[in-house]
């Protein structure tokens, strides 16, 4: 299986690529709608500003092809902004529309805590998770964000809390998404990526 890494011009594509290489997985970078049409599995990495990602998807004509692939059942993993992009909109760029394949929207974490939420945090498991299989419940994952899905209509598999409880791991049919960075989360992150590769195979 070959993983298509959506390379829209920003973010942590190279880090994800290196993490996949360490697992012995084949991947190719892509920014064309055509290659999304043939993709066996898609990873959307992302870090930075919500607006930059959503605008890039539109400018590069990737939106329709990506939504189509998600509806077709292509295994998908969204990382950080790649999770947020799945929702309807974000307070970080309220004038823009997200992919809206999942209900709910992205909100700012409360200013009562230090932001960005930066560093290693643990998860609260909510229901059985295929992505988290074989990963110790007290494992830490690396987060770097100020916005999150706080009111998730769709129950998340795992949440994390920093000022507010937010969705950390989402699994919905073929759509998988994590708010943290598995590519930067040591052994636990590597196991999660391995689980996704196995699910997608």
């Amino acid at each position, binding site marked *: 299986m070959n993983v298509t890494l959506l390379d829209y011009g920003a973010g942590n594509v190279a880090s994800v690529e*290196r993490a996949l290489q360490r697992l012995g997985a084949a991947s190719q970078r892509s920014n064309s709608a055509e290659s999304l049409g043939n993709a066996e599995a898609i990873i959307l990495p992302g870090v930075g500003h919500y607006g930059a990602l959503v605008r890039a998807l539109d400018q590069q004509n990737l939106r329709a092809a990506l939504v189509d692939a998600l509806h077709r059942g292509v295994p998908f993993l969204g990382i950080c902004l790649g999770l947020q992009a799945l929702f309807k909109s974000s307070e970080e760029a309220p004038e823009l529309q997200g992919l809206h394949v999942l209900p709910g929207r992205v909100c700012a974490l409360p200013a009562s805590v230090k932001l*960005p939420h930066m560093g290693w*945090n643990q998860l609260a498991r909510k229901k059985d998770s295929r992505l988290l299989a074989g990963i110790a419940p007290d494992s830490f994952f690396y987060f770097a964000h100020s916005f999150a899905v706080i009111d998730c209509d769709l129950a998340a598999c795992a949440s994390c809390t920093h000022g507010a409880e937010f969705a950390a791991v989402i699994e919905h049919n073929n759509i998988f998404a994590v708010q943290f960075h598995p590519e930067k989360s040591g052994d636990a992150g590597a196991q999660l990526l391995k689980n996704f590769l196995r699910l997608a195979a």
Partner: protein
Amino acid sequence: MSLAHRIIPCLDTDGARVVKGVKFVGLRDAGDPVALAARYNAEGADELVVLDIAASRDRRPTFLETIRRVAAELAIPLTAGGGIRSLEDARSVVRAGADKITVNTAAVERPELISELSREFGRQAVVLAIDAKRLEDHWHVTVRGGRESSSLDALEWAKIGVACGAGEILLTSVDRDGTQLGFDTPLTAAISQAVSVPVIASGGAKLPEHFAQIFSEGAADAALAASIFHDGVQSIRELKQFLSARNIEVRLPC
């Protein structure tokens, strides 16, 4: 369950090799950055910082190659800096594999640099490094590796930096750096309370108690050290076990 306090080893390099000195002077060789990066990644470091303290133009390609080789060893975040003066400098460092960029002297001279980097890479990727030195009843900002004073007050500068878009402050006490007398607790606590972003304390660490103190009394979100880790004076694994036993939240390595 809460956000873990981070332990961050720092590799001060001349571009190619890790070097060390006391109070920013008297440099000597302290090892191969790639080998040290691999060791810290395995020992449970939460992040790694790599700085080019020479920051000379003609050695830049060497430093970028060092970042590439270090990044290849890491499954944890990498911050790189030293001599970043423009968006283009930052892009080359990010392309080489850094997740975050630190800026220091160039940001003091031109604070808009912070906004430019924040717009391009996001706030979480921009670390404002402040080298602070005590002057009577306050701290002022020094530049050029602690060698020159600026007119800025450290607290005010930290607030301005965050307003411009810095997502984190890497706070070095010039008075404590290299002394192994412990972190500067009053400085760190003052800055940490003044800003809404995480603060990384740096300068003066030797004993596990120093780390416990800077997390509890200094309100630091992360603590950075260099030579005590390079020389094996302190292992990251044992340090984290010590902190965990004191009920300080850390990510214990497997």
